[in-house]
Structure formats: structure tokens, C-alpha cells
């Protein structure tokens, strides 16, 4: 796998070529680890590697310095072939302090590279991390790893000497020192980072200069010292031809919303309230005002949902985004959207719950809330993107369903794909599916009926300002066709059935479910949402090992694709891995009477490929 060459450019050090590397930066919340990880991702993506990232940060902006709870990490996988996850085990770990070492060392591969800021390993920091003995003095603790003790704090200070920085300012540059060192280790071109620093600190040239010097200092350290005897190259991946950029799920949603607005030729009105991990959608959109994107930062989650309903009534593309706790508060107004049969999209970037739960960690535990979390019979279509880039596609699809069927649609993203990044092939605008909207106008001599339905059972979207179509809608039960308030028993039965039939009819509008692997056989793995990468990687590894296992990844959760029931019955067993306690499994079992088995994890972390392969293996063995 690795080939070795010796070149004079490398100061006599050997140069190895590797396919895939998993790298993790970890340190204190204030150590700039997210920044270092993002920069490494950017230069690797621009170099042509496939990349996948997992930012992992605490809920507190700044937990006490040096504490275990304040550790912030950024993991990325970069590769010369296509990858779907940020990796199970870490090849190279950069630990900026004892707390970071303590909380991350278990994920480092045996024999992996460990780069430590030894200056941070004083008695006090070791104590805060719960080390009785300094792990650097403990011959047992770090045996089995390739340990590089680097006096980063001191070397960073030396690098920036003479620039007139305070010691505190100088110390803040040490993430760039660490970054420079790993850039050298993996033969990265630092140009893009240098440009970023210059532009970011344009108003503070001495800070820019200091960070550049620290970056160079780190690189020089790797090149010059004998600590590192090898460095590595990871060739560009063979991705499909095209122009690429890096994208996170939240960015992709913002881009997708701007695109939906263009396709529909309608202004977008985004109504939101700040909440982790959905706020970045608001931030991104608020910069796109020249797309006629209007953003309304409401006073609370209830207002933002009610405003989305009002925006839809007034003819805008209406959207709101939140996370679990906020979605709870939106429930009543979302029901109003259902009964008034207006098109809008509600994005839930899921996080660990219940209540405030794990604000910065991922989970898939709001599926049943999306399905049933409102009063009354209140069915709504639900879709879920599979990857960061897929958010771009599925948010448009959500709007396509919303305006075609005159209904709110829920999109379930999660913290993992919202913050995670991957290379994104910039789409050809001519190849995007259209979003077609028709508003009625008055017909002379004919009364307007706001609940007169078309073949899809959708009612007309008559917009205020249109002469002759004045009408009233609201939360009270409506008579079909006329839309008048109507409480009669038969009418409520009828309207409940019509609303359900309309949503079920979406199944005829969406693609059939596809399967990766054999069309029938021993085992089908069914997944949904952000677990796509891990499940896909695990199943493909099983294929390579000659096992009979297939994978169906659902992006449409309500209604399910119309062939799903038949498809499930083509396999002897069904495994449903989810980052919850078995919510999709419950739906599959109740709807299709299949004996689906779950593999469930709620640790705020994505699945490891390895644990899924183990589960698949045990299901296959169990079956034979």
C-alpha cells in the first residue's frame, strides 16, 4: 500500500504514499481547533482529495480552560479514493493539552502518530485532565504510538518574536504552528491558508504576519528536526469530472433554498430563531439578500413557524429551520399549516434530546416527532438528505412536494451532515428539476372555491392581492370545496381522510426506492438520513468480502416509496441501524409487518463502519 522514495527536497527524509488518512486536531475550546481542521479540509479538498469531516465541539462557548468538558475536536478523513465517512480510527492525532489527550487517545490507532504540545503538559493541566502522573513521563501510557513531543507554545512564541505581540496574542497562534507541522507531514500546499490569513486579518497586519510565521514555523520544524523521519503524500482522488467546492450540509441547504427560489421564480422568506445546530442556515441566507431572500429573525420559535404560515399565505416560498426543542414549539403552528393546506418547508437539524439534551451532538431521534408530533390527525410529508451535498437536492425536493401538494413538508437533517463537509460537484443549472407554481386568477361569473382540489388533491394557492379571490382560511375545520367553517361529523371524517390521502399520494410523485447490492438475498440493511456514509461504507466492504447483503437508504420517509414494502420482503432479514432507539424500525414494522431488527446508538456520534460490519456479520451468521 505504501511506497517509499527518498528525495533531496525532503531533507533526506523518506516520503511515503498512502491512500487514506484520518486526522484529528483536538485542544481547548479556545485553541482554534475548528479553524485548523477547516483549513486542512479546504487545502485537501482543493488539492483533489475526497474529504469528509466531523467537527466535534462542546455546547459551552468556553468551558474552563484545560478542563475535559472544554475539549474541542475536528476530525477529517482525506483520501485518494472516494470515501463516505470521516473515518473510524484516527491515524494522526494532534493533542494540544492533557485534557485533549485524555478524551481522544482511545480513538487513535495502535501505531498511530501522536503529536503533542508538550508545553501544555504541566502539573496543573495534567491535574485538570485527571492525570495523577504526567502521561509524558509515564512509559506505559503512550507506548504503542509514534509520539512526537513538540514544544509548540515556546516555538510559536519564538516564531512570532519581534512582531510586538503580547504573550497571550502570540499563544493564540499555536494552532497555526500545529497546522504548519501537519501540512508538512502530509505534503499540503499552504498557499490557500496563507491567503485566507492575509485576507482575514487584513485590518491587523501584525496578527496576520504572526499566524503566517507560526504556520511556517511548524512546517520548518517538521522539515528540520529529527523527530519526524517520514512524511506522506495522499494523491488526488478520482472523482467524477467537474468543478468542485467544499460544502457543509447547512451551506448546501442555503444554496438549495436560493436555488428553489430561482426555480420557482418566487422570493424566499426564511423565518427562524437562533438554535444550534441550525443557525448557520440563517447566517448563510442573510448574506444572500441580492437573491431577494428575506430573512426574519423572529422573537421565538413559535413566531417563526407562525410567520412561515403567514408568508406562505401571502405567496412566498416560506421556510423555517430549527432543532428538536424548537420543533416542539412549532408544533401548533405547523398544524395550522396542515389544515390551511399551505406550502412551506420546516427543517429540523436534529441533535441529541430530549429537552436541551446534547445541543452540539448528532442524533436521529426526531423521526417520530416529524411523523406524529402534532395534535389531531396531521400527516405531513417527510424527507431526509443523506449527505451534506444531498441537502442541496432534498431541500429543493421538499419545496417541489410542498407546492405541488399544498402542504408543509418536513426535512430532517442532523448535526452530523449539517456541520460535516465534503467535496461537492457544482451542479449544472440547466439540469436542475423545475419547480412549477401556478396561482389562480378570478374567472368572471364563477365563485372562487379555496378548497376545490386538483387531481393530486391539492387546493389552489390564491394569493392576497389577486382581485376577485378574496377568501378566508384558518385553523378551524373547513368544508371541502367552499372552505367555509364546518364542524359536521361527516365533513371532519371526510377532510381527515382527504388530508391523509393527499399526503399518501406523494408516493406517486417521488422516485422508487433503489437498492445497492443484490435485489434479493439474506440481508437488507435499511437506513435513512445522515447515517448514509457509514452504512454505505460498511455494506460495500461486506460486498467486497463476498457477503450477501444489500443496502436501501431512504430519503423519503413519509410517504415511503411505493415499492418499499415489496422490496423489504425480498430479503430474509432486515437490519435497521439508526442513531435513535428504533424509530424507523417501528414505522417499517407497523406499516409492512416485517420483522426488522435494529442496531441503535445514541452517543452523540455517528456510526463507525466497523461496528456496522460486526452487526451485519452477526445477522448473517445468526441466519445461517
Amino acid at each position, binding site marked *: 500500500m505504501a511506497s517509499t522514495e527518498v528525495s533531496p527536497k525532503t531533507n533526506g527524509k523518506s516520503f511515503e504514499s498512502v491512500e487514506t488518512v484520518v486526522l484529528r486536531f483536538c485542544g481547548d475550546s479556545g485553541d482554534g481547533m475548528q479553524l485548523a481542521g477547516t483549513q486542512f479540509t479546504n487545502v485537501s479538498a482543493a488539492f483533489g482529495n475526497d474529504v469528509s469531516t466531523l467537527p466535534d465541539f462542546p455546547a459551552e462557548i468556553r468551558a474552563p480552560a484545560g478542563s475535559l468538558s472544554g475539549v474541542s475536536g475536528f476530525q477529517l478523513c482525506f483520501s485518494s479514493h472516494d470515501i463516505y465517512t470521516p473515518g473510524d480510527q484516527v491515524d494522526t492525532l494532534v493533542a494540544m493539552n492533557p485534557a485533549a489527550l485524555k478524551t481522544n487517545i482511545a480513538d487513535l490507532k495502535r501505531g498511530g502518530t501522536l503529536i503533542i504540545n508538550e508545553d501544555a503538559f504541566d502539573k496543573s493541566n495534567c491535574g485538570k485532565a485527571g492525570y495523577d502522573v504526567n502521561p509524558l513521563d509515564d512509559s506505559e501510557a503512550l507506548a504503542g504510538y509514534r509520539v512526537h513531543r513538540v514544544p509548540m507554545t515556546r516555538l510559536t512564541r519564538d516564531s512570532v518574536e519581534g512582531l510586538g505581540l503580547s504573550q497571550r496574542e502570540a499563544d493564540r497562534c499555536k494552532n497555526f504552528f500545529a497546522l504548519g507541522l501537519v501540512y508538512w507531514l502530509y505534503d499540503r500546499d499552504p498557499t490557500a491558508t496563507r491567503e485566507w490569513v492575509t485576507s482575514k486579518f487584513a485590518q491587523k497586519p501584525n496578527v496576520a504576519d504572526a499566524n503566517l510565521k507560526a504556520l511556517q514555523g511548524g512546517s520548518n520544524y517538521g522539515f528540520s528536526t529529527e523527530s519526524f523521519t517520514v512524511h506522506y503524500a495522499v494523491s488526488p482522488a478520482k472523482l467524477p469530472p467537474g468543478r468542485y467546492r467544499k460544502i457543509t450540509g447547512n451551506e448546501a441547504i442555503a444554496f438549495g433554498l436560493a436555488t428553489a427560489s430561482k426555480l420557482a421564480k418566487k422570493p424566499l422568506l426564511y423565518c427562524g430563531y437562533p438554535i444550534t445546530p441550525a443557525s448557520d442556515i440563517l447566517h448563510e441566507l442573510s448574506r444572500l439578500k441580492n437573491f431577494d431572500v428575506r430573512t426574519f429573525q423572529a422573537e421565538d420559535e413559535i413566531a417563526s413557524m407562525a410567520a412561515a404560515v403567514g408568508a406562505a*399565505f401571502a405567496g412566498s416560498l416560506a421556510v423555517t429551520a430549527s432543532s428538536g426543542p424548537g420543533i416542539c414549539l412549532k408544533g401548533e403552528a405547523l398544524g395550522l399549516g396542515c389544515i390551511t393546506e399551505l406550502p412551506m418547508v420546516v427543517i429540523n437539524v436534529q441533535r441529541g434530546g430530549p429537552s436541551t439534551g446534547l445541543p452540539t451532538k448528532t442524533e436521529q431521534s426526531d423521526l417520530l416527532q416529524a411523523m406524529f408530533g402534532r395534535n389531531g390527525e396531521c400527516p405531513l410529508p417527510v424527507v431526509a438528505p443523506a449527505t451534506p451535498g444531498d441537502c442541496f437536492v432534498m431541500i429543493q425536493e421538499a419545496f417541489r412536494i410542498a407546492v405541488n401538494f399544498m402542504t408543509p413538508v418536513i426535512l430532517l437533517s442532523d448535526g452530523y451532515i449539517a456541520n460535516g463537509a465534503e467535496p461537492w460537484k457544482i451542479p449544472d443549472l440547466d439540469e436542475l428539476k423545475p419547480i412549477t407554481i401556478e396561482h389562480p386568477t378570478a374567472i368572471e361569473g364563477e365563485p372562487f372555491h379555496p378548497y376545490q382540489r386538483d387531481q393530486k388533491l391539492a387546493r389552489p394557492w390564491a394569493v392576497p392581492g389577486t382581485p376577485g379571490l378574496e377568501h378566508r382560511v384558518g385553523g378551524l375545520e373547513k368544508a371541502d370545496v367552499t372552505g367555509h367553517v364546518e364542524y359536521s361529523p361527516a365533513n371532519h371524517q371526510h377532510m381527515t381522510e382527504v388530508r391523509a390521502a393527499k399526503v399518501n399520494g406523494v408516493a406517486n410523485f417521488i422516485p422508487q426506492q433503489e437498492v445497492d447490492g443484490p435485489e434479493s438475498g439474506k440481508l437488507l440493511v435499511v437506513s435513512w438520513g445522515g447515517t448514509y456514509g457509514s452504512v454505505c461504507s460498511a455494506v460495500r466492504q461486506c460486498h467486497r468480502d463476498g457477503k450477501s447483503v444489500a443496502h436501501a437508504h431512504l430519503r423519503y420517509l413519509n410517504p415511503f416509496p411505493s415499492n418499499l414494502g415489496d422490496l423489504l420482503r425480498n430479503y430474509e432479514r432486515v437490519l435497521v441501524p439508526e442513531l435513535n432507539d428504533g424509530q424507523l424500525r417501528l414505522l417499517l414494522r407497523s406499516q409492512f409487518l416485517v420483522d426488522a431488527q435494529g442496531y441503535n446508538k445514541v452517543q452523540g456520534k455517528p456510526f463507525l463502519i466497523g461496528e456496522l460490519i460486526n452487526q451485519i456479520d452477526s445477522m448473517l451468521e445468526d441466519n445461517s
Partner: protein
Amino acid sequence: MSMELPVLTAKDFASDQEIRWCPRCGDYSILAQMKKVLPTLGIPKERFVFVSGIGCSSRFPYYMNTYGFHGIHGRAPAIATAVKLAQPDLSVWVITGDGDALSIGGNHLIHAIRRNVDLNIILFNNRIYGLTKGQYSPTSPLGARTKSSPLGSVDNPLSPLCVAIGSEATFVARSVDVDIKHLMSVLQRAAAHKGTSFVEVYQDCNVFNSGAFYYASKKDQKPQNTVYLEHGKPLIFGPNNEKGIRVSEMSRPEVVELGSGISEDDLLFHDEKAAEPSLAFLLARMRYPDFPEPMGVFRDVDRPVYDQGVRDQVQQAIADQGPGDLEKLFNSGDTWTVE
């Protein structure tokens, strides 16, 4: 196509729905005055939108032949804000009650007002929950005996106008359901104001809180218990205009008899354009029975309007950056090509 607007009448604004308020409810009068006011505004019928919450008053949109949205409890200001952001040229009216606006919807009310969204918010204050059949509301007086307060309410009430003024309202007014001409003129003033117009209407719930406002509406009681505000004029009231309001050196209002050394010049002169809201607040704090309660426009000042600000930013962004170009957006930042 003729550019002339058709001449509308009150009848054009009546919907085909049967009105289901209790007989003699104060809401009937407010509905009637609204239907008379709208045709005077020079706005095409299709550009009116009525948004409401939940409660007796909130059935109002069903009885108007305009675009209407009967929302959920308390949320009408939020719904209406988005209607205005989506289509700034609409004339948007929020119809709400004391429970809807000040209890469950208090948060939305204060934020709509402080943003100065161009809405006309008409609060029907009957000091009781009528639709749910007679519980005390956030404007019920201390001691009010209701179904949920058989021993008398121990909840201190709040004043809708004080809430509005505290939320930096740019237009604040009060009228009474049966004072037909005054109510019409107040509604017209509210419609003319750019920004949030907040109007409290004393409304008689003749079933659960009958006569709550007789002191301000009955012919024999109204003159001594109310004072009608006019911009630039002194505050004079009483059956024979014999009394006035003076502000003491301690900046407190006091009732004085005219004559015997006190002339009109000594009285408080109303200034609805005052930059500071302290006068409006002082007036809003004047309560029966200690004072005559002011009626009319308390405050009417100009401040940037939220929906206009949102629209201006979009137009500025388009002027500065050009209309949004997806190709350019997607290719911004670091990109690379795979051959």
C-alpha cells in the same frame, strides 16, 4: 383597463357568512365601523388582509369579504408580520383580544410593535375570556369575580396602552365600541399611520362582563369619566366642559375645575407628536375612577418601518452586488476542477 378604482361601499366588505357573535355583542359595532372605514381609504379590496388569533374577536376575518386568516391563539402579529414582509403593499389588520394579545400572545405583540411593522392592530378589550366562557383576563381588574376567580381575581391587570408605549409604539389610540364616529375616525387615523398602529377598543361582552365600560360609554356617565384628546388642544372634560387636567410640579396629572383662577392655558395640552413617550404614558396611566380616561390618539410619531427596512436591504444588496447569480454563488470561494 381603467385605472380608476371602483367605488366601494360597506356592503362590498360584508362576507356571506352568518355572524355568530352573541346578540348585542360590542363586536357588531366594531365590524360595522370597519366596513364603513375601509371604502374611504382608497385601497382596492383585494389588498386588505385581516389576520386574527383565537377568541370571540378573532372570528372577525370570517365576516369581512377580504383576504382573511384566522390564526392560532396569540400568534396573529407573527403571521401578519410575515404577510407584510411577503407583500409590503398589502393593508394588513390584526384583530385580537385582551387574552389573545396580552396573555398567550404577549411576546408577539411587543415584538411586532417594537419592530414597527406596518400593521394596524385592533385590540378588542372586554376584560374577560368570552369564548371560553368567562375566566378573568390580563386586563380584568383586581377583585373581579369570574368563573375562575370566584373569590375575586388576585392578578394585577396591565394596561394595553402602557404595554404598547413601553414597546416603543409609534401610534397608540383608544376608542369605545359604541362611539361610532369616534371609532371610525380612530380607525382611519390608524390606517393612515406608517408603522404599527395600536388601537385599544373598549368592547362590551354583554354575556360575561356586561357593563364593564358603561362609565365610558353611557351618555350620563361618559362626560365626567372620559376626556377626548385633540392634538394641540388642552385636556377639557365634564358635562359642561368645566373640568380639565393639569400637570402638577411633580409631573403628576390632577383634575382641576376651570374658572376660579384656573384658565385653559394652565391645563395640559395634548401633543401626539412628542418625541418622548412620557406624555402618552402619563395619559395611559390615567384610570377611572380616579381620572377621566383619555380617548383618541395618544401618540403618532414617525420611526423607520420594519418591512420597509427589510425591502430596502434587499434592494440595496441587488444594487450593490447585482441580482443573485447561482453560478457565481456556487463558484465563490475555493473551487477546483477534476479532469
